[in-house]
């Protein structure tokens, strides 16, 4: 009896060890493997949807109704501004697509985006957020489903890089690796959270680790040092807070816009500050867009890099209600030059249009609310 129990225990341990010993890829030796290519054209439209947060309480049907209207609004806007034939080219899903969700949510979500991708002709690129790890599905299931979805751009391998979804989308002349990249888009997993010690009561939010920065720089060198780059990830890094302090407390003159109605929910600990922006800005990083803090879409040009949080998409978990008559300084600052005269909720999407290969781009924030007596929609330019 004792022998049997011991055998079962040892067999289980061996299986676990084998599972954990899956071959780990050395990222620096496989830089090309992380690269997808899509065809570039001027006025390339990248729509950022962030923090959709499908969860156990979500009405997927209601959420899809909202997304239907949102995508139609964006598409109509692009056509109106850029002319017939223009469309959403790429959707960046910058994390927290799910929280406390299950496989049913996952399948429904991917089916929905596949359907919409067919309808509008876009591809979509998901990035892990802290809450995407926090559900009743195996993380590998999420990765596999995204990998196998026809219109989804996603790469994940057991490798030496921190996080799960670190990959590159190069926009090239003919959409293959045979031609030079016009833009490089880096999708980075900014992790979830960690305890400082095993007895810590609280956890710190995660940050982009030095090995990920090093990987970005290597990938950029591979694409070409002159290629302009944009990074998408979930958790803001310390530069957002630094820029905010410089603007709001030290009176620094930096171009900045939109709303900052709560903290960035970043790591906030100097000891764990990321080196990503600091180093990537010397490698032609033009902009970095993220999510995570739903009541913030504040964007700033900091040391030559546009840093901005996307507009939270949909009504799950939490979002801010904007009162246009508010005396609150942050609300007033957000409303400045927006032309918005009625109350609204801070939900919608963000649109980046790459206007040239020289690193120029336009940025617009869409505030979109469903209403019984006609939906609210406001586009505000950066």
């Amino acid at each position, binding site marked *: 009896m004792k022998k049997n129990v011991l055998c079962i225990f040892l067999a289980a341990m061996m299986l676990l060890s084998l*599972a954990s010993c899956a071959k780990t890829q050395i990222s620096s030796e496989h830089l090309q493997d992380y690269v997808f290519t899509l065809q570039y054209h001027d006025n390339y439209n990248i729509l950022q949807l962030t923090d959709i947060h499908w969860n*156990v*309480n*979500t*009405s997927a049907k209601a959420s899809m109704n909202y997304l239907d209207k949102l995508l139609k609004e964006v598409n109509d806007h692009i056509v109106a501004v850029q002319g017939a034939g223009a469309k959403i080219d790429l959707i960046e899903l910058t994390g927290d697509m799910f929280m406390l969700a299950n496989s049913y949510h996952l399948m429904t979500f991917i089916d929905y985006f596949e359907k919409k991708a067919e309808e509008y002709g876009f591809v979509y690129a998901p990035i892990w957020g802290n*809450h995407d790890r926090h559900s*009743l599905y195996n993380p590998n299931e999420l990765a596999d489903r995204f990998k196998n979805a026809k219109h989804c751009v996603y790469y994940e391998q057991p490798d030496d890089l921190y996080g799960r979804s670190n990959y590159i989308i190069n926009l090239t002349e003919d959409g293959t690796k045979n031609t030079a990249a016009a833009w490089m888009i880096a999708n980075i997993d900014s992790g979830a959270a960690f305890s400082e010690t095993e007895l810590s009561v609280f956890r710190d939010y995660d940050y982009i680790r030095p090995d990920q920065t090093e990987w970005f720089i290597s990938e950029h060198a591979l694409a070409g040092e002159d290629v302009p780059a944009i990074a998408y990830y979930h958790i803001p890094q310390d530069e957002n807070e630094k820029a905010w302090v410089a603007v709001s407390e030290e009176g620094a003159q930096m171009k900045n816009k939109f709303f900052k109605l709560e903290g960035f929910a970043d790591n906030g600990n100097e000891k764990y500050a990321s080196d990503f922006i600091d180093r990537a800005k010397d490698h032609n990083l033009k902009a970095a867009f993220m999510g995570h803090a739903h009541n913030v879409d504040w964007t700033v040009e900091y040391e030559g890099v546009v840093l901005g949080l996307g507009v939270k998409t949909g009504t799950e*978990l*939490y*979002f801010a209600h904007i009162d246009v008559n508010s005396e609150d300084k942050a609300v007033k600052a957000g409303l400045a030059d927006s032309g918005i005269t009625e109350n609204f909720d801070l939900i919608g999407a963000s649109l980046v249009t790459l206007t040239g290969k020289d690193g120029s781009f336009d940025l617009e924030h869409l505030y979109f609310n469903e209403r019984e007596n006609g939906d609210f929609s406001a586009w505000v330019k950066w």
Partner: protein
Amino acid sequence: MGKMVMKNMFDKNGFVLCGLDARQKKQNIIVTLCVIGSFIISAFTFMNFLYCLSDCIGSIVCASPDISLRDAIRSVPIFLSFFMSLSGLMVAHTFYRNESENILKRKAKKHAVIGIVLGVITIVYVIAMRIAGRYLSLVEGAPSPLYPLDAIIFALIFIATGIFIISYFKKTADKPRYAGPTRAPVQKKGRGVRSFFRAFWLLIGLYGFCGFFYSIFIVDFTNGYVPYIIAVMLVSCVAFASIAVWELYYNNLTAEKRMKVTLPLSLISVVVSVLTAVVYFTALKGNLDGPSNVGFGILPIAFSASVNFATLLVVVTPIIVSVTALIKGIYRKIKFK
């Protein structure tokens, strides 16, 4: 010495089941299976309950009580399904305890009625919300493909079960009823406090069971953190085992046997639960980002609050239970020496 203790602990003459006739044995097996079955159902509904609650708490913490309320309204059938399954567990457990004929009849009927009432409320609520347009359809989907219709089906099952229990007592009013063994009654002294802690312990046990079960499927063993994964599975397992050992083993012993076994069993429990805690914290030390990166679906509350609170609670509760039992065992030893 160790062998002696183990042999003594599993001496079949010390169990309340000893000497039962065939009918009693059959009834006892059915009731025990009902307890286990309703415990498992309660564990799953409890996890759903925690998931919904965590999201609602998350919205409140993020200063959006309106979203929390909207979500809570949508998920009322999920909340109710947990209390329904709990009423089922209580009915089964009342039979399992079988403290006396009167207590059995009174308590089992009470819990059956609670189950029926909750079931009716669920059905009425779903239909009303559908008519009001809060549910876009009866199979709106999420969290399951059939939600909220599946909540109605679940409620109907519990209504039927409740009616069966009540009619069972009606039918057997003049005949001998359930003839299973009587197990240790809950002591009257400090009943309120005891009931509170027992309920809390039960919730931890449900959480542990479901956490362990889900971890088999949702934990990613290929992405590192293996020591932490094993530790967290061990923690879940011990939290559940703690309730299983005391309820399914200890409470099946005769009163005399329980007196003898309390001290050695509590000593073993203390050692196991303390060792588990040590293993957990050692694994965490080497995987400080483990909790947030692997299978955190099994620890919903902890993650929502971005604190380690829930994990600590699950680690500490078996220690508290076993230390309490140890004190009780020592006290009895001194008292009856």
